[in-house]
Every structure is written in C-alpha cells, then in structure tokens.
C-alpha cells in the first residue's frame, strides 16, 4: 500500500559513489519507521532527496499521493513535511523563541498573511512547543548559548510548532544524557499519539526498539531489509553489517 509519504526507485550518485540506490520506502500514516544502517549508508541523503534538498538522479517521491519530485524544499515543507538536521542547523544568532517562530512564518513579503488571529495562533504554537520541549525558561536566550541537550530539543521544538504531519528526524537523540533521552522518547510518543507520522534515523537500538513500529535497514545506499523491529534486529547478517563486520 502506498504510504502517506512514498518513495519509489530513488537513486542518487555523487560522482562515482552510489549514495542511494533504487530505494523504495513507504511511511504509513501513524506508523513510526526507523532508518538503521552503518555510517555512510545513505540515510541522511535519503532525507535530503525526500525534502528536495538534493534532486534525485531518478525515482519519485509522493506526499499524500501528490508527486513532489523536483519541487523546491520550501514547497515540500509546506505540504507538512518537517525535518531535523544531523548537525541541527539552528538559527544561531536568534533567540530560542525566534527560532521557533521563524520556523512557522512562511510569508515572503514584509508581513504575514492572516492578520492578528493568525499571529496569535503562531505565538500560541510557539509557546506550546517551548513548553513541551522544556525550553520556556530559555525563550530569550540565543541558540548559540544553549547547552548540547537544549539545542537538540530546540531542533525538535521548531518541528513541533509547524504542526507538520510527517517528521523526518536525523539522529535526534545522539549524545543525549539518560534523562534527556527519556524526555525525547516521551515527546515523540506524544506526537505519534497526536497523529504524526515519524521517520527517524537512529543509531541507538534501544531507542529504535522503544519507538519504531518498523525498521528499514540501509547499507551502501541500498535498502537491504524492512520489517518489524524484532525480526530485523534478530537477523545475524544485518547485525553483523551494522556493527561493522563487512561482507566479502
């Protein structure tokens, strides 16, 4: 069945390197999918292809049945696809509050459409996102002045505020302390319960087990397997690849 977000035969080469090869992937509505695979497997590139950051050599991406291949990143974003970046890419010199507010203002003109009501709705969305990510007390701090865990939560707050239906999270929990990690897992669970379709790239297999309904396993640009977490994580061949024991 074609998913809410669907990828067919996606390919991308960088020079001679096949970063993504003939990948099919379906994000079914409400199903949390984890992309797992060793470093350099092409996971981030797959996100970049889906969100229009990079144009694929071939293949298609559809969101809710509409073809988006070749559309520009901001157009795809406005269809309800939000993403985080492995290196976060916060708006460093802006405040925490402005980071989140800027993420939901789409008007390119000198003002935003919708007048006062829309403005109040945006402000409410920002406050709520900051509260849920535990950043309210830092609203006026600049992003560059945050601690590591705080920057991670800010990158989630930006996505949360957008109200996007699809979240693509690129290693959102890497390097988090235990407490922050648990808060993060709870945050994603809340979003999923509220109807968000999540796809996350994650190296920590505990987090994958806690959050994911499905796993897609990538290696050297190709999707080697996809299925229930238990089945994938029990496959000795995949685990060997994952932990770096290369096949001949």
């Amino acid at each position: 069945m074609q998913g809410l977000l669907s990828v067919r035969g996606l390919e991308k080469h960088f020079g001679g390197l096949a970063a993504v090869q003939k990948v099919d992937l379906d994000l079914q509505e409400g199903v949390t999918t984890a992309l797992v695979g060793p470093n350099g497997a092409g996971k981030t590139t797959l996100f970049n292809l889906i969100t229009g950051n990079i144009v694929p050599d071939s293949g298609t991406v559809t969101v809710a049945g509409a073809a988006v291949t070749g559309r520009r990143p901001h157009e795809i974003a406005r269809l309800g696809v939000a993403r985080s970046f492995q290196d976060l890419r916060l708006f460093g010199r802006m405040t925490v509050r402005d980071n989140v507010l800027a993420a939901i203002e789409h008007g390119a003109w000198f003002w935003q459409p919708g007048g006062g009501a829309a403005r109040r709705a945006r402000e409410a969305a920002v406050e709520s996102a900051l509260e849920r990510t535990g950043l309210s007390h830092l609203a006026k701090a600049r992003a560059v002045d945050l601690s590591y865990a705080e920057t991670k939560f800010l990158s989630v707050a930006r996505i949360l505020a957008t109200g996007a239906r699809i979240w693509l999270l690129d290693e959102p929990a890497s390097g988090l302390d235990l407490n922050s990690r648990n808060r993060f897992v709870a945050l994603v669970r809340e979003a999923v319960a509220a109807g968000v379709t999540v796809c996350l790239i994650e190296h920590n297999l505990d987090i994958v087990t806690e959050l994911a309904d499905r796993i897609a396993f990538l290696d050297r640009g190709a999707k080697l397997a996809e299925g229930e977490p238990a089945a994938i994580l029990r496959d000795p061949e995949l685990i060997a690849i994952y932990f770096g024991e290369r096949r001949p």
Partner: protein
Amino acid sequence: MIAYLLNLATLATVFGILAASLNLLIGYAGIFSMAHAVFFGLGAYAGAQIAMLLVPDVLLACLAAAAVAGLLSLCLALPALRVRGEYFVVASLGLQMVAITVFSEAHAVTGGHGGLVGIPPATLFGLNIGDPGAFLLVCLAVLALVLLGIRVLMRGSFGRSLMAIRDSESAAKAFGKDVPRIKTLAVGLGCALAGVAGALFAFYMAFVNVESFTLEQSVLVMAMVIIGGTATLAGPLIGVLLLLLLPAGLSFLTFIPPTEIGAVQQFIYGLAMTLLMIFRPAGIAGLSTGRR
C-alpha cells in the same frame, strides 16, 4: 565653525542612511555586498536628473532614486541568489567595477568624469529647504524614518526570515521559506534606501561625479557597518561617526603633515578592523560572542 559642524552633521546623516541600508544586507541578510556605492550613485544620478530636468523636490527625487536603485538592484540580487559567501563578494566586486565604467562613459545621464554640475537647491512641497540648517533637518527626518522602518521590519517576520536565512539557509528552506524571494526583497529594499541616501547627497553637494561611487566608498561604508556593529540599529551610526570624525580629528593633529593624513587614516581603519575582528567580531555595538 557652525558651517563646518553643519557640514559634518549633514554628511554623517546621509552616510548614516547609507550605512543603515548596507546593514540590512550585511547584518541581517548575511549578503556581503562590495557594490553598495553603486546604488548610492544610481540614486544620486537619478535624484540629480529629476532636480535638474523636472523639479528639485526632495521627496520626488528620493522616490525616483529609490525606484531606480531598487529596480537595478536585481543586478545584485541575481548573483546573491546563485552564489554564496566569498563567491558573491567577488561577483559584487565585479558589479562595482562594471558600474564605475558605465558611470564614467554614460555622459548623457551621469555627465561622465565631469559629473553633473549645478544641481538646484532642494525644495519640499514648493518650500525652499536649500539652506544648510533646513536641509540637515530634512536629512535627519529621513534618517529617523529609515531607522524606524528598519527597526519595525527587523523585529517582525521579515527580519526573522532574513536572519534565519543568514544563520542557516538550508534550515530556512526546510521550514518553508521562499529564500530567493526573501533575499531579492532584502536586496531591493537595501539598495533602494542607498538610493535615497544618494539623492540627498546629490542635493547637498549640488554636484555629483563618479569619484563618490567608487570601490573605496563601498569599502568605507562596509567598514562603518562592521566597525560599528552589524545587525544592530545603533552600530552603523556609531561606525559612521567614528569614520567621519576620524579624518576631522586627525586634521587637528598639527604634527601630522597634511599630505600624510590619508595614509594615517588608512592605517587606523585597517588596524581597527583587524583588531575588532579579533576581539569583538560583532562590532562595537554588537552583542558579545556566545559560548561557541
């Protein structure tokens, strides 16, 4: 002495508008244009032509100058959208050089090297505002309006969009921002305001020629913005005061031979910019750097 102070104050005000407009590009949008004097010049020529051919009305001349500089800023927006960072700096340098050639050769519009002479004294709604005091007041009023406008815009969504693009263009796109349109708009606005400064400059000098719109001028304005402090309202003004007062101050130091003042000035600018970048990269009025 009064005349001297009025002269300094008027020039500072005009350059204040110019620096504030460049700050929009450098400080808020992260677009390091080395061609700002071109748009200052376009505004000066446009304003002068309106005054000489039509009426010497300041408002009309400023609007025409803004329109001409704003429209031709597409020449700058195009590279700003296509290339980033140091490549854009080079592209804008090229534009600056091309523009100087055009300014020097297009005699019919710019008067060539001789420039445009005999720009009539300014009027406003038929009132003569040609005397230095009145003209300074008009310039101050324009500066106040420009600063107010920039403050309102930069505190609003447009400013947030610009700063978001400055801090991470790919993230801005990923959050639905139409980056080319926002950048084009910022370049257009910044250059239109430079044009306004140019029109006021033309009236004040009653004479304009290409010498005022060279690369040195672009560099001077950029130095004002960077030394004063980017992305702040007061920064560019502080930079203007320092860099305009510096030569005035130096001329009081009688032990420096007049022929050497230029060299001493260059030396001090250069040293100040280098030291600032090391110790206070956000400029004098800028926020201190964060932990990272």
